[in-house]
């Protein structure tokens, strides 16, 4: 059932990306529309606002969640493409291991940057 577990997590990750990236897009890049519904407020792109978001634990958690979801979703797709392109069980297993190592490394780096900024 491992293959189905990864497929299911891929779908869940897609939903997480859809929600979090949708919120990000609405707040950062469609701020006029966002403020029409939430009321007028400061410009989200102001430095103070960026720092405030960086210091918020909720935002920190959402950044790490989005990072994890995006990495899993992306590497799941890359893994599937490479598995189809490569012949041989050994090569396909190696692709799986490489994807996990690269994904975890990027997740750790991304989390470190996010957490480090949180305390800045």
């Amino acid at each position, binding site marked *: *059932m491992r*293959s*189905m577990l990864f497929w*299911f997590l891929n779908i869940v990750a897609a939903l997480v990306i859809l929600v979090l990236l949708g919120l990000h897009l609405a707040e950062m890049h469609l701020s006029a529309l966002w403020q029409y519904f939430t009321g007028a407020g400061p410009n989200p792109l102001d430095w103070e606002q960026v720092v405030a978001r960086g210091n918020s634990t909720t935002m920190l958690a959402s950044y790490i969640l989005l990072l994890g979801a995006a990495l899993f979703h992306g590497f799941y797709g890359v893994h599937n493409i490479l598995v189809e*392109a490569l*012949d041989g069980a050994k090569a396909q297993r190696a692709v799986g291991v490489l994807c996990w190592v690269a994904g975890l490394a990027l997740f750790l780096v991304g989390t470190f940057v996010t957490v480090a900024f949180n305390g800045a």
Partner: protein
Amino acid sequence: MPAGPGMTILEGLQYIREHLDATLAWRFSCRMGICGSCAVVINGRSGLACNTQILDISDSEIRLEPLANFPVIRDLVPDLGSMFDKHVRLRPYLIRADQDEIDASLGEFEQSPEQLLEFNQFSYCIKCGACMSACPTMAQDAAFFGPMPLTAAHRYNSDSRDQGFAERGRALDTGHAAAHCHYAGECSRVCPKGVDPGRAIQLMKRSLVMELLRLRKSADRTRLIEPPVAQNVDDESLRPPPFTAKHT
């Protein structure tokens, strides 16, 4: 070659062998869309030669090729061995835990019309290989089980009499099974029997995820019932009228 109304691709092939090229090889048997032997690629689309009429094809030229995604034995004859190997690996038969019942059947398994509808359309598959030839995932990944074996597995997984979901689940857990389907839908488009393998694979994904989340309904959803017993008809009105031969 001449073609008239009602003439099929299969009859065209027979004409070619009789009049133009006696060495042409292809596979056929029933000539009526039942056996699935004569599947070929007709102008880029997989289908049965016996139920495709020549005049129904709008193109002025007809190009026939052997089924894609299979090694070719000769001319239009593909080697379908890999498809049947995968089919067998997914246990396409009813699996029961009650060995006593298997060894000496004690009755019949009750099945409601609703339970029958859960798998009925998937049992129309004739294993012609048209879906396997049309599948773009098969073209990329030779280890992918493909639409036909996966549909067969789902057909038995959805049968209320079956208890082999876990066993098939282990066989399916290879990374080249349902989760790997891109859902291009070509398999459903070309199926000559109207089976919808794309749907079967999506339903299989759902049931596997439900099983993963421990939300799937119990596999054993049937019970053994007494076999019907022949009854004497005592009511005269139900008897058929006596047969009388008339001579003219």
